[in-house]
């Protein structure tokens, strides 16, 4: 499935401060792929919400657990996979935030925003291993973009200093 994709992978500890670190990586990747500023913001926000779900709700900020952020760069799309080591969740059980009864609820908008900002969003529960979400954004094929392109680039663990 990933034979023709370039891959960028970063592994984070379960600390909310790493959400901002992930945002910076997202912006670098998207800028290199010539996504415009608005698209960068939307994808960045979808990753922000997904990272929070993984660190806060999935791993419950357990420092022993990790979050994997991976970018699969295809000519026609960008796939972003975020995996945690939590107990998983049923995405269909999340109440729709636009329903009148939910409009003034404090939480429950993260998944909705991810769906709004991405072209596709999938959740896969991995029994005993955690949850992996896949965010997809279509891109206009432009062969010249990849001339300096990405090859498998492990940026390693982001550990506190």
């Amino acid at each position, binding site marked *: 499935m990933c034979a023709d994709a370039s891959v960028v992978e970063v592994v984070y500890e379960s600390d*909310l401060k790493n*959400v901002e670190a992930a945002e910076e990586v997202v912006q670098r990747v998207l800028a290199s792929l010539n996504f415009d500023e608005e698209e960068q*913001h939307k994808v960045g*926000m979808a990753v*922000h*919400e997904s990272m*929070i779900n993984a660190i*806060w709700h999935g791993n419950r900020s357990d420092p022993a657990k990790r979050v994997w952020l991976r970018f699969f760069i295809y000519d026609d799309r960008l796939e972003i996979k975020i995996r945690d080591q939590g107990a998983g969740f049923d995405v269909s059980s999340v109440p729709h*935030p*636009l329903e009148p009864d939910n*409009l*003034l*609820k*404090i*939480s429950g*908008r*993260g998944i*909705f*925003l991810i769906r*709004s900002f991405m072209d596709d969003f999938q959740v896969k529960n991995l029994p005993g291993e955690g949850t992996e979400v896949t965010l997809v954004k279509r891109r206009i094929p432009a062969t010249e973009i990849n001339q300096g392109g990405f090859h498998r680039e492990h940026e390693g663990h982001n550990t506190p200093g």
Partner: protein
Amino acid sequence: MSMKATIRQVNAVTVVDLSGRITLGEGCTQLRELIRDLLSKGHNKLLLNLADVTYIDSSGIGELVSGFTAVSNQGGQLKLLNLTKKVHDLLQITKLLTVFDVSDDEAKAVASFDKVASA
């Protein structure tokens, strides 16, 4: 950069100039405590100026809703001033522009509180 807040009093309205990030964690906690503190001191006409808010996430939006509800429950009003395009778009897709009173003109926004107060 976390959130910062500067408080001004304009007539009967408390204007809060917010800047930075309102996100899960520090930013949301600061905003929650700020509104709670203002309410406890009797300030229930709040105008949040979001002009310099660089980033707000779903938790930050939830905190604005929480503040709106808390102020309303005390017979007051919480309104928003100077939304950036990104914040405006977020409130639009979450249908919260139908909830919040939003303005780009501080003087008019302040006056709108006064009208309610004298009604």
